[in-house]
């Protein structure tokens, strides 16, 4: 059920986005440099797990939302839309995991 997946991923994202934003504000206020940030994230399995969950939630949430936007705003329905959105989901997953792994290893 796409609707349930959309709602469940939204609930996960609400938490993830809050933690992510809080961390950005913390890092900026503390005056951490990129090197210092990397020092903390490298090899930290907790942050890798957190950002993997974040990426997975975005991968589920964004294409389902776009599915309705395309249908209602552009009148684009059917298989071609769903194939393109599946590819878009893969793109998000690849880019997101690349970034998450980038700061881990």
């Amino acid at each position, binding site marked *: *059920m*796409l609707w349930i997946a959309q709602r469940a991923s939204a609930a996960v994202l609400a938490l993830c986005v809050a933690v992510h934003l809080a961390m950005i504000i913390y890092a900026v206020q503390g005056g951490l440099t990129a090197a210092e940030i990397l020092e903390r994230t490298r090899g930290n399995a907790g942050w890798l797990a957190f950002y993997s969950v974040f990426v997975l939630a975005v991968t589920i949430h964004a294409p389902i939302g776009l599915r309705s936007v395309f*249908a209602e705003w552009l009148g684009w329905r059917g298989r071609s839309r769903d194939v393109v959105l599946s590819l878009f989901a893969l793109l998000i997953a690849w880019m997101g995991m690349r970034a998450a792994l980038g700061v881990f290893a």
Partner: protein
Amino acid sequence: MKVFVKRNSGFQEFEVPRHPSQTVLDVVTYIQRSLDPTLAYRYACRVGMCGSCAMTVNGVPRWTCRTHVDRVVRNDALEVGPLKNLPVIRDLVTDMREFFDKWARARGQFAGERTKRDDFHKVKPSSSDRVQVDSNIECIGCGVCYAACDVVAWNPDYLGPAALNRAWTLVKDERDSLKTERLRAVAGDAGCHSCHTHMSCTERCPKHLSPTAGIAGLKREITKAVVRGKF
């Protein structure tokens, strides 16, 4: 006052005298009887029971018989058109077939199990399910919610607030025997899951029902059925 009436050829302007307690239906009737007998419009009861006189008044879907001119007139002018989201037959008359066909697609027919040989099914008026049915049951099928709904405008397959509200009152009816089939009929892109909860239907319903609450209830029931593996 000036009244701009949507005809098949475009808006036509009429000059109509104001009266105390005048309704928009009075205005349209005056135009048809005194100014232009070719104007087509639809009404029956004139007292807010039948729901057949619904039109777009100054951009808002309303029962014209229950709308006083004083409440809606702007700069001594009124604009009257047919309901939106429905094909126009002529002037202010819309074709309601698709609207009612969607009630059938949402499985809007009651399906009981008892026969005339059985005793009455006694429903406790205070039961939680019946209270929810009661709050949404008084729909008279006027189409105002359907005309007000953005999702119907964007997605012509969408069943619409009235049909989904009807399905909700049957899902919550303990005498009904088609629960899972009903939930299947109202799930997915054409059904309750397309509702964006804009609440235009609830805002405009002349009976002050909340189809939005019913649609949210359907989403809840479907989620429960999925979790229990009954969907």
